């Protein structure tokens, strides 16, 4: 029943998991549940290296319920209920798809599944079921209902694992089943076009929801939804460059979220505050944390010198090559506005004025918090300077999935013949110019005056009192909701939809429950009525 096989795709995802788990091992964590974490790790390994659908499903389910028990230590009842119902639902749709595949091809082992003889109706059914699983796992609208609460209410260490690795299992399943098992030529369904648009819509809505968020972890949760939305969009283009872009973005997103979540976790660890409105002004208290966060948001927003840009660049070139202009426009819209919540994250926590005066009393951040952050930052910077370094690995995966490899021109260059850029030159030029201006600035021989205290700012002629909350910036994004288009986007809420579904089931169960409290006599009546009906039908 358990049989495994080392594949290039498996290696990449497993490598990411190992890196994340090893680096997170150092972070101080109140809920030391080693068994559950090792169970989760084993299930992830089982998913990535499975060589038949049943082992994949077993890993998938164990991951589902082991993370349920990990979240259960801190999240409240509604969140747990939302989490488990969606994840078990996703797992059961996966099981449905596996059974359908078994019905169509008569076996579970990947190598023996050939879809040439399978009628297209069945392939579409399998695709829809798998897409449901993917939507639930990666939190595509409207199935993202559980994502934000679970990420923000689980303990800080686990939300990093959730967002960095577990949201990627959906991507892994998509690639494995659609690219490797069903293979592109049997997948002619127009559904994938719809999936692309659904991915983009999710990321747009999630981005604007993130901008509106006041809690750091909820902002990061929405941002994970948005980023995974990009991956789903680009994956459903089903081209070789788009697959490479998706894989590249998966790697980048894993380390960005690892860095950001642990950074926020460190701040929450020392300040016990979650919300931007109660944080702020920690820049000069925790400078290293600040710099690491800046590296994180630069790559999250996809700004050039760092790794984030390379994956964003690949996504744009893949979409351009496929002439998907409108789709690219939508992606651009969401990634442009993504920049807003990146800045809000930095401003809310570090910049601006400290809202509570006793920031001095905050303890030092334990060094162990920096291990995953440094790992993330180093990888992001290296991928910024030498973006091409992991292209051969992706080409290995592309080969295993039957695509011809993407153009590889050395470590520094990234992109296809449509458009490519040289990472080394970009970051080198940036560094050089920065140093030149710095030298020129320092050489200027004028004295710099230090302000007396944090209230010594030009304040339109008035004098700011200490009790005035000067941390105005945390409310960034408030004015966005005044803009017509964005107000319409923000009004979307899946809460009402799922609330209606649960009340429907509740009322239904209310009715059936009354049946089960019949008195013995009425029960007798039901039996004899049933007998008479069947007898009458039979005799007629």
């Amino acid at each position, binding site marked *: 029943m358990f049989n495994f096989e080392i594949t290039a795709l498996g290696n990449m995802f497993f490598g990411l998991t190992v890196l994340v788990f090893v680096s997170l091992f150092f972070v101080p964590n109140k809920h030391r549940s080693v068994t559950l974490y090792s169970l989760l790790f084993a299930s992830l390994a089982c998913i990535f290296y499975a060589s038949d659908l049943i082992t994949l499903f077993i890993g998938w389910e164990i991951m589902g319920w082991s993370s349920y028990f990990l979240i259960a230590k801190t999240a409240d009842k509604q969140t747990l209920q939302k989490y488990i119902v969606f994840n078990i639902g996703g797992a059961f749709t996966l099981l449905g798809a596996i059974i359908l595949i078994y019905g169509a091809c008569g076996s579970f082992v990947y190598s023996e599944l050939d879809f040439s003889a399978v009628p297209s109706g069945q392939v579409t059914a399998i695709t829809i079921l798998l897409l449901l699983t993917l939507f639930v796992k990666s939190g595509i609208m409207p199935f993202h209902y559980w994502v934000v609460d679970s990420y923000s209410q689980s303990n800080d260490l686990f939300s990093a694992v959730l967002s960095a690795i577990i949201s990627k299992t959906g991507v892994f399943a998509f690639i494995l089943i659609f690219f490797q098992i069903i293979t592109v030529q049997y997948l002619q369904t127009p559904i994938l076009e719809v999936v692309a648009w659904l991915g983009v819509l999710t990321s747009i809505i999630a981005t604007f929801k993130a901008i509106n968020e006041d809690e750091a972890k909820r902002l990061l949760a929405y941002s994970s939804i948005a980023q995974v939305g990009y991956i789903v969009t680009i994956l459903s283009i089903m081209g070789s460059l788009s697959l490479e872009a998706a894989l590249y973005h998966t790697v980048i997103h894993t380390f960005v979220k690892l860095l950001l979540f642990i950074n926020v976790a460190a701040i929450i660890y020392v300040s016990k505050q979650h919300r931007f409105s109660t944080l702020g*002004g920690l*820049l*000069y208290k925790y400078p290293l944390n600040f710099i690491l966060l*800046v590296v994180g948001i630069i790559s999250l927003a*996809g*700004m*050039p*010198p760092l790794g984030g840009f390379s994956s*964003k660049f690949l996504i*744009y070139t893949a979409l*351009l090559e496929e*002439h998907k*202009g*409108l789709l*690219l*426009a939508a992606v*651009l819209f969401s990634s*442009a506005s993504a*920049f*807003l919540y990146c*800045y809000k994250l*930095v*401003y809310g926590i*570090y*910049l*601006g*004025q400290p809202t509570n005066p006793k920031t001095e009393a905050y303890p030092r951040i334990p060094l162990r918090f920096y291990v995953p952050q440094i790992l993330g930052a180093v990888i992001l910077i290296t991928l910024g300077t030498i973006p091409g370094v992991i292209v051969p690995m992706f080409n290995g995966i592309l080969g295993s999935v039957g695509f011809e490899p993407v153009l590889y021109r050395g470590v520094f260059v990234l*992109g296809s013949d*449509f*458009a490519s*850029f*040289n990472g080394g*030159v*970009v970051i080198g*030029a*940036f560094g050089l*110019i*920065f140093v030149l*201006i710095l030298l020129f*600035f320092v050489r*200027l021989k*004028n*004295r*710099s*005056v*230090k*302000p007396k205290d944090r209230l010594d*700012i*030009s304040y*339109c002629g008035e004098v700011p009192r200490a009790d005035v909350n*000067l941390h*105005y*910036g945390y409310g*960034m994004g408030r*004015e*966005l909701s*005044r*803009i*017509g*288009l964005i107000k319409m986007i923000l009004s979307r809420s899946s809460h009402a939809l799922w609330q209606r579904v649960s009340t429907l089931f509740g009322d239904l169960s209310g009715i059936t429950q009354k049946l089960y409290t019949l008195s013995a006599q009425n029960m007798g009546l039901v039996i004899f009525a049933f007998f008479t009906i069947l007898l009458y039908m039979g005799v007629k």
Partner: protein
Amino acid sequence: MFIDLLIMLVMAYGFGFLYYGLYRNISARVHGRFGPSLAQSFYDSIKLFTKDTSTDFGWMFFAGPIIMASGAILTVLFIPYFNHGERLVGLSPYGNLIVVLYFMVLGPLGNALGVGSHGNPFGAMGITRGLTRLLGLEMPFYIAVVGLMIANESADIGTIMANQAETYNIIAHPLLFIAAFISFLGFLGKSPFDVVGAPQEVYSGPAVEFGGKFLALALSQSAIFSFAKLLLMVDLFLGGADSLWDLILKTFVLFVASVFVGNVYGRFTTAQSVDFLLKVPTVIAIVGLLFV
């Protein structure tokens, strides 16, 4: 190679401030008064650079403007000046249009970090306005650029310019040009979208705590940045410059067009400008994109 970069930089700095001085003269004439001399911007920047004291709010406040300036300079260096590609090509072979677009956003990020570090609420208000407006500006410009890239099957500015040998893009893709021009106005900080950088709004703008050398650096980088954008518009829609004279002529024509449009309109609030930008130019750009 470095001489080219230096020349490009000096030209951008020179032309930037010249055009800025010209702009101050033309708008003065429109207001019925005599404007300052053309070189007034040079004098201001030299005076500010040599001021003997400037308040400094810590190392991040110090690094913010520097990142902003390096963002602007990088944008200029990655755009080729001429369309024949022998001289003043800069670093464009190592990058392409997408890289340039993202460098245009790097500058505001540096500025935002610097402004954020000193914690003045007015600065924060200016930054929020700037970033929201940026969101509105980017949409039509990006869609127009996407349309061009798809039309020319490449993201390299050189090839886009080469393909305009017989018909300029302004004629081939008029809708894209209109959308790009409207957002170009915003990028140059001309009204009606100039609520962020306008002099009257300086107190609630991002540069509220900048003084001395920091303000000087901010002004000079904005000059270089506006010349870079002019250059980009020329390369994308006017077939790039054949010679130096052709370059000056085309950039001047564009600059004057933006100045005249700028002086006519009043100033939108941020919400109005973003609302307008997301409605009119974006729709024009999308329609243009469909026709590509």
